[in-house]
Structures are given as structure tokens and as C-alpha cells.
């Protein structure tokens, strides 16, 4: 009983953090779904959704209801247990990284010593979900998408991690809160511009967004790994994708854009979240912007770009950082 009472605050904290995480995941999906369609519309000189509610703001709610009401079609020759499992694997792990993200000084689930490692570890599970989904669909297009996705994500995790390691060497900690706090005079984007660029590119590839959306390249692979998915199982993949976007953008904000730092407001230890979210959604806007602007790269070019440019450059950057840290 003593142990229970001593753990109770932690348990309550976990429950609250999980609820907040769910709110963030679903709220983010609603905002992003609407923003993506609206922005895509305006980029294309058309208004986007306009019918449901003023400027179509209820469109996503209606879409969610529609997707929930739809039949889950399972192909005849699909591997049914894996087929059903894949969307859950894609969706479930996105809650965990949210626990360690420091939205502001006081708004954070846990300040873990290994926060970054936790995020990277759970972000990699997404690849497994795509592979399982593509494999179990028993469809050649899905399989293509899955194979491309694995090759792409495994390759792009390396420059992503190495570019972040440069920051780790400078701050001597994996704790996201301390990294964010370490940028009080200058943001690391100024000190480490190359690492920032590499991270941004790897981030786009890691979330399978255009111009690196090869796993779901619809003009080549119809819809890639989720060709056979319908209804809610499809929307779980989409929710997972938006949540992953949120996570990678949050990491970029923490590592390069100073976390919650900005013009101080009253109660800044809480209101810093405004600056944090502003930076995150600016990055998300950037993701949407390039998605609707650029054509898709080819698979070999994508891999060449990673292995021939991003990884060597990030290694050089790391080396320089290490030397500089040692000297100064």
C-alpha cells in the first residue's frame, strides 16, 4: 500500500498525460486534415472544402464519421490477423513520444534522461506497421510500397540521428527539456544550420511525405502499402501519419528552434506552449507546402541522395562539432 501511495502521483500523471496525448493526436489530425485540404486548395487556386459549415470547417468531422461507418474490407487472400494488426501498430506507438516532448517549461509528461532515444525507438515502429500492412495485403502494389518504405525509412533514420547527435554532443544530454533550455541565447539552427537542413530533409522522408512519398506513390503504386485498406483501418494509418509529422516537427523545434523560447508572456512556464505549437505548425505548414509544390523523386535518386550526400555531410558535421566542442 505504501508503494501504491508513493506511485499514485506518477500514475495520475501517466493517465493525464495519456489523455492529453490522445487529445493531441486526434486534435492534431483534425487541424492538419483541415489545414492540408484548405492549404492544398489555396495553393491550387481553388477554395478547398466549402460546403460543411463555414469554410468547410466541419468537413473533417463528417469525414471521420463516414470513415467510421464504412465497412472494413479484407481481401480474400490477405493474412487477416496481420492485416488487422498493421493499422494498430501504426497508430498505437505515436502516444509514447508525446509523453517526453517539452511543450513548455512545465508542460511535459516525463522528463526522461533518454527522451530522444525513446522518440526515435518508437518512431521506427511505424516502418514495421507499413511492412506488415503491405505484406499481409497480398497485393503486389502494397508489397512494393512496403519494401520501398523499409528501405527508405531505415536509410533516412541514419542522417536524422547523426544530425541530432551533433546537438547531443554540444549539450551533453538526451533530455529534451535540457536541450530546449540550452538554447537560451541562440537557437541551434544558427549554430548548426547544416544539421538543421539534413534533419528537415530526413524528416520529410521519414514521414513518407511528398516529394518522398514513394511508399504510397499513387501514380505508380495506386496507393502503395494502404491500397487494400478501407474505412477506419485506413484512417488509423492517416492518424498515425499526422501524429508522426507532429512528433518529428516537435523534435525539430526542440533541437533547433529553441523549444518554447520566444517573446515572454505572463506565466511563461505554461504559456510557452503557444510559441512551441506555433513553431511546430510552421514546420508542418512547410511540409504541406512542399508536398503540393514538388513532383515526386525516383526511388534510386532518393536512396542515392541519402547515402551519397546526407550521411557523409552529417558525419562531417558531427566531426566538426566534436572537434569544436573539444577545443572550446
Amino acid at each position, binding site marked *: 500500500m505504501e508503494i501504491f501511495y508513493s506511485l499514485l502521483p506518477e500514475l495520475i500523471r501517466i493517465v493525464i498525460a495519456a489523455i492529453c496525448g490522445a487529445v493531441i493526436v486526434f486534435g492534431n489530425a483534425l487541424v492538419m486534415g483541415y489545414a492540408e485540404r484548405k492549404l492544398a486548395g489555396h495553393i*491550387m487556386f481553388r477554395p478547398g472544402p466549402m460546403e460543411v459549415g463555414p469554410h468547410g470547417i466541419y468537413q473533417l468531422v463528417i469525414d471521420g464519421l463516414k470513415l467510421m461507418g464504412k465497412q472494413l474490407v479484407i481481401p480474400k487472400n490477405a493474412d487477416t490477423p496481420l492485416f488487422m494488426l498493421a493499422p494498430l501498430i501504426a497508430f498505437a506507438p505515436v502516444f509514447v513520444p508525446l509523453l517526453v516532448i517539452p511543450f513548455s517549461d512545465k508542460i511535459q509528461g516525463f522528463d526522461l534522461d533518454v527522451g530522444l532515444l525513446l522518440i526515435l525507438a518508437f518512431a521506427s515502429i511505424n516502418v514495421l506497421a507499413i511492412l506488415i500492412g503491405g505484406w499481409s495485403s497480398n497485393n503486389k502494389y502494397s508489397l512494393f510500397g512496403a519494401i520501398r518504405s523499409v528501405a527508405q525509412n531505415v536509410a533516412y533514420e541514419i542522417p536524422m540521428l547523426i544530425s541530432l547527435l551533433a546537438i547531443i554532443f554540444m549539450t551533453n544530454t538526451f533530455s529534451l527539456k535540457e536541450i530546449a533550455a540550452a538554447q537560451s541565447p541562440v537557437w541551434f539552427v544558427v549554430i548548426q544550420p547544416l544539421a538543421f537542413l539534413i534533419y528537415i530533409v530526413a524528416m520529410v522522408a521519414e514521414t513518407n511525405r511528398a516529394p518522398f512519398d514513394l511508399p504510397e*506513390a499513387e*501514380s505508380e503504386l495506386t496507393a502503395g502499402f494502404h491500397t487494400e485498406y478501407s474505412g477506419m483501418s485506413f484512417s488509423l494509418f492517416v492518424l498515425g501519419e499526422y501524429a508522426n509529422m507532429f512528433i518529428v516537427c516537435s523534435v525539430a523545434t526542440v533541437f533547433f528552434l529553441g523549444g518554447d523560447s520566444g517573446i515572454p508572456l505572463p506565466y511563461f512556464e505554461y504559456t510557452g506552449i503557444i510559441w512551441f505549437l506555433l513553431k511546430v505548425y510552421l514546420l508542418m505548414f512547410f511540409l504541406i507546402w512542399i508536398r*503540393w*509544390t514538388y*513532383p515526386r*523523386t525516383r526511388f534510386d535518386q532518393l536512396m542515392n541522395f541519402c547515402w551519397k550526400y546526407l550521411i557523409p555531410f552529417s558525419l562531417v558535421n558531427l566531426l566538426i562539432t566534436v572537434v569544436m566542442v573539444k577545443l572550446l
Partner: protein
Amino acid sequence: MAMDVEILEDPKHHRYVLNMGPQHPSTHGVLRVLLELEGEYAMELLPVLGYGHRCHEKIAEHKPVKSFMPNTARMDYLGALIYNHGYAQLLERAAGIEVPERVEYIRVITSELNRIQSHLLWYGAYLLDLGAFTPIMYAFDDREHILDILEDVTGSRLTYCYFRVGGVSKDIDDKFVTSTRAFVKRLRSRFPMYEDLVNGNVILQNRLNDVGELTPHTCARYGITGPLLRGTGVAYDMRRAEPYSIYSQFDFEIPTGTKGDCMASFMVRFHELEQSLRIIEQALDGLPEGPIMTPKVPKKLKIPAGDYNSSVEAPRGELSYYLVSDGSDVPYRLKVRTPSYSNLSVVPEMCQGMLLSDVVSAMGALDLVIPEIDR
């Protein structure tokens, strides 16, 4: 078509068959391509046609020559007026009918508008194949103006039946002239935007350069014409090579490429937009007054016995009508040589050993319109 698969499937080589189409986002219609893949490389390709076969040549043998005109528009729904043009010219040539000058000008203006419309649709759809979503909306924005202009004068938006033997069905008015001039000005002003947004993009360059290379000799062997041929450096355009209508009076260039790859044909098509605008401007400047129909065309048009050919430059290449007549008003045999048919037939050779993504970009560069292949 189980037999096709059996032919391609070869368990020894760990190859497998990917069925692309007839419902696939980048085959642009009911085209089916069987790809024998090794990894992601296409080692063999087998296009399967005929899903949209509507027996146009058989229909032609069963009705008076003049009433086949609407069918021509249904073959290539994007170049309908040019198909009208070729057919009207065929009958005029065969029956020895002179066409008033104003009619020729109207035909040239509307045909060139139609060509621009077709190229704009290709521009958007091709970039959609390459994964760029936005340009198609910009291209459709421009294309909509042409459809509105042509709707006013022809009455339809896509499958026009505007030309008649010896004339056109309706005269153009001042509104047509002013709105066409406005459109020419507008599209010119949009070219820099297209160049900035799309043509200079490094991803696009990497996707298209050195992909699907053709040589003039390959083109001769397969009968490839149109922008693909001009991309290889051969300035062969029916408007110049066998000047029909009044094209010989206009000053325009034939854009050519050098390498014959997808980028070359891409740029050729893009520059053809500008050349079509030039032709339209000159034709509008020189538009004469006069009748829009030859008075002496008989109701029952009898074609003297013999064979007749009429070739025009469709948006995708050379379109030929070949008519064999036995002296009656019904064709004995009408054969339509459609450019996409010959252009597509190069795919098994051109795409051999390509990545799947390159197959999509190479086939997109052919600018396929499947109904004109199946006829």
C-alpha cells in the same frame, strides 16, 4: 487473358508479373500493361489493348460519308477538332470541293485552340503522374477558357462536331475574336509562371532527363510521329511537311529537342503552346470576311472510286485517314491511322530494363489517349 500471363511468367528467373491497368491512375484510360518485373525493373512489357474498341471503322462502312463526322471526335476526345479537320479535308479532297477562305481561317484558329487545350491537359496530367499535384489545376484553369470559347462557337465542350464538308457549322463572331485574343494574352502571361514552377524544378529534371530515349531511326521503325519524334531532333510536322489548309501562310517554328528523352518531348510540347498561339494571332489578324459554307456540296456526297489519304498533325502526331471508295456515298473501307497507336507500340522496346517509376514517366511522355488507340 490468361495466356498473356503464362507467356510472361517464368519461374526460373524469379520474375513476376505486375498487372498495370485497365484501372490504374497513370494509364489514363482503359489501357492495360503487363509488366514482367525483376525487383523494380521492368524486363518485359506487354500492352493489352481493346478495352475501348467501338468499331469505328466498321461503322464507317455502314453509313454515308458525311455522317461519320461525329465519330471522328470520339476517337481522340482531346483533339476532336483536328480529327474533324482531317476527315473534312479527306472528303473535300476526294470530292474536289473548294473551301472558302474564311472557313480555312476558322478551322485553323479552332484547331490550334484545340491543340493548346490538349497540350495543357497533357501538361497537368503528366505532372500528376510524376507526383506534382498542383500544376494540373493551373493547366485546367487555362484550359477552361478554351473550352468556354469553343463551347460558344461549337456548342460542345469536348467531342466537337463543328466542321462540315465544305465549311463549318456556325460562323464565329466578334465575341469569339475578342475572347480568343484575351486568352492568347493570358496564356502568354502564364508561361513564365509555368517555367518557374515546373520546368526548372530539379526533381523534374532528374525524373525526365535520360529517361525513355528515342532515336530518329527508332521512330522510323515504329512510325512514331509528333512531339516524340521532334524531341529527337527531326523537325517533322505535318503542318510543314505536307502543308494542309492554310498553314503554309503562317510564320511559326517547329520546336525540336536533341536527346529524344522525356525531357526533350516535354519541352517540345511546352514550346508548341507558344507556336500555336502565334498561329492563332496571325490567323485572327488575317481573318477575312466571306461565306462559311461552300454552296455546292450535294446532300448525298458521292466519292469517286479510288483511294484517298488525308494526313494532319494531331496533338500526338500524324493522323491519317485512308478512304477506299467504290463510287457510292458509303466508304468501302475507311482506315484511321491514329498517332498514339504507333507511339504506344514502342513501349515494349523503350521501357525495357527501366524502373517502374520511369515506365510511368516514359508512358506519360507518350501523351496517350486510349480511345484513339482502340478506336
